[in-house]
């Protein structure tokens, strides 16, 4: 079986190198990379940790699609050579490893969870009030969504756009019943929420199946749309959600006419 792996460092020779890897039942792309490291090319660089799709380390572009190497079964890919390349939206370090430190800088700009002064718990929180937050908390920071988003990938607007991962992060804080900060204005002004034109590419690649656009970005845009955010409207939406359905999945319908980008 042929596996073509991108190799190289910035400023040096770069290109795909073909390796012959013996197929093993049920193997994933990361198994193939490990085989190459062990037997063919000891200095081939990649990131991985859990090997179980739980840590978000092993992101790469497999046959052109951003995916986790540890979760991509070779037998699910079309016949023929498998190509593995590093994330294109981030600067190359070596081989399959890119410099993703910018993401950690963005995270620092987002104020941490902040409860009301003196409100120290232990809290009584009903599950219905946090039900939709669990989804956002599932994010494993693989940055595949950041990689695929055209605003970062093609337009390189890192100085004015947080990227989908951090809209998920903000949404998780903004909708937390105990968080008292209003995060919408910063997300608009500094985070570039308005630049997102709901292409949903981010949602498509998320290995945690987070509905990034419908459940995080669109609700944030809605909140942003109301200059003075209307609590009655919020309660109304929430009530509807609780009686089945979910504001989130209907997010698009609720988008005001004209819609984004704003």
């Amino acid at each position, binding site marked *: 079986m042929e596996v073509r792996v991108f190799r190289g460092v910035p400023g040096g020779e770069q290109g795909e190198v073909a390796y012959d890897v013996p197929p093993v039942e*049920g193997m994933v792309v990361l198994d193939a990379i490990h085989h190459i490291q062990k037997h063919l090319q000891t200095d081939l660089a990649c990131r991985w940790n859990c090997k179980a*799709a739980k840590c978000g380390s092993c992101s790469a572009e497999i046959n052109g699609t951003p995916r986790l190497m540890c979760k991509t079964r070779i037998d699910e890919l079309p016949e023929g050579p498998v190509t593995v390349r590093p994330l294109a939206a981030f600067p190359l370090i070596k081989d399959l490893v890119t410099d993703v430190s910018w993401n950690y800088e963005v995270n620092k700009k987002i104020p941490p969870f902040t409860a009301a002064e003196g409100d120290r718990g232990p809290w009584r929180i009903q599950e219905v009030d946090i039900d939709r937050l669990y989804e956002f908390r599932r994010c494993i920071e693989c940055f595949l969504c950041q990689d695929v988003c055209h605003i970062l990938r093609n337009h390189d607007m890192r100085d004015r756009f947080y990227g989908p991962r951090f809209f998920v992060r903000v949404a998780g804080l903004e909708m937390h019943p105990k968080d008292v900060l209003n995060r919408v204005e910063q997300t608009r002004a500094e985070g570039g929420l308005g630049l997102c034109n709901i292409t949903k590419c981010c949602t498509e690649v998320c290995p945690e199946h987070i509905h990034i656009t419908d459940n995080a970005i669109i609700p944030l845009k809605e909140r942003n749309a109301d200059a003075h955010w209307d609590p009655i409207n919020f309660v109304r939406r929430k009530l509807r959600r609780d009686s089945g359905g979910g504001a989130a999945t209907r997010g698009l319908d609720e988008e005001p006419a004209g819609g984004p980008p704003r």
Partner: protein
Amino acid sequence: MAEPYTTIDCDVLVVGAGGTGLRAAVAAAEAGCRVQVVSKSLLGKAHTVMAEGGIAAGLGNVDADDSWTVHFADTMRGGKMLNNWRMVEIYAKEVIDRVFELERWGGLFDRTEDGRIMQRAFGAHSHRRLCHVGDRTGLELIRTCQDKAVHTPGVEVSMEYTLTQLLGDGHHVTGAIGYDRNDGQFVVVRAKAVVLATGGWGRMYRTTSNSWEGTGDGAAMAYLAGAELLDMEFVQFHPTGMIWPPGARGILVTEAVRGEGGMLFNSEGQRFMLEYDPQKKDLSSRDVVARSIFKEVKAGRGTPHGGAYLDIRHRGAEYIKKKLPSMWEQFHSLASVDITREPMEVYPTIHYTMGGVRVDPESAATRVAALYAAGEVAGGLHGSNRLGGNSLGDILVFGKRAGEYAAEYAKTVGSAPVIADAQVAEAQSDALRFLAGDGDATGENPYLLHEALQDAMQDDAGIARDQQSLTRSLEAILELQERAKRMRVGGGRVLNPGWHSCMDVVNMLTVSEAIVRSALERKESRGSQWRLDYPDLSEEQGRVNYAVYRDGELMRIRAVPLEPIPVELSRHLEDG
């Protein structure tokens, strides 16, 4: 002369960014120190992120009669009384606050009907005690601590640095040296106090739930710096790891599956745990369940791929997907198994290391001045067998304490310590000797030595061991130590995993030697140590822990008598 290197100055160096390191960093910074955190991986990728089942704390939210004293007793019994009782007492009391603190920092748990933190049943916990969020509790914990730490003034984090050696004079540490993984340049961190939070070691075994990080660097570094390693013979086999497909072998299947009602069956459809432990059944302690599966397979009652069946289908698809979503996904994507319709195939996998650096129970101080250790790298809390959920609590309780005491110590140190140039130069050449440069790269291949070590440990120092197998294992390790001197790899210093592996192999060999020597010393079966030639508990050996320490080039071992448990505490042991 030393090669060029960058120097980082700080009050407290925290080695590791799992739950332990992050909690320690917050504590030390809040005490007014400048803290430098260093980790081998990116932030948020340490083993802590993989924890699934939950964090054990006697909140009594579900079973009202639970309390810290019951938790204390369960933990001591689970460890077969070899635990340091004072650590267990501190732990069981303080973990309750640490859980509430997580929530205060923005962590989200599943809730009870009345809005409190939900708790689930787990192996050998007498009450429903594990606070959890589905089966991704570790992710919640690490993300919460990570966000807290990066927003705490005074905390600096350097990701993807590997430290290779503690600096100091054998009685006192002054910092550490290592390299930036990405460019291969050397870094010296000068510190008034150091907290080791480097986690455990599973990589010297073939079947393991650990990532590449679990090479025992912290234990090896502490040992070389003069600290003692306690209880090293106790390595936990988690009863349920995946066995198929081959590439997934060893990946964890959380105990929460059994906590939520999952049952084990052999190929003849018998629920064998009813026989091995009629009381606790599938939720017996991990050592017991792992041995039972091992015995069933040995007796020819294994599944097609040589394991046991784990069945949760009776809970229904909706419940399974709510409570065990990542297990569903894991089996679905890796093994094409739908766990709501088919049973899983499981077999024991190396998971956790009870042993570790010997520390003072109050302060996490080692016997080397300025050196602290907490979390999985430290020994003492779990005795001969850890109960599930007791690690996520451990890392917060003792991470915080280590950070606080290290900060206190750092404040007593006047000026920044002096680092000897010669020591730096020596550490550098220790690292660089593995690079062939333009020369001959035909030395030993680190990946193949690693594989040979895994064979020696898995086959001869594994779940079942005896004098002969352990002796074989020790001989193999000593031989590999010689061969390791001849490891050579090609490529340069920029992000070269082959080169990094050479240093990992050296650490794994040191730690493996400590495991096997301790296992040879303990001539009894207790907790995770199952000696076929000494199948019973020995009263005499139950009164000591074994500690490994360095004497020149020799590894020595001594028996450390257990502290007697005070009467007021031993009372709780009789209660339940």
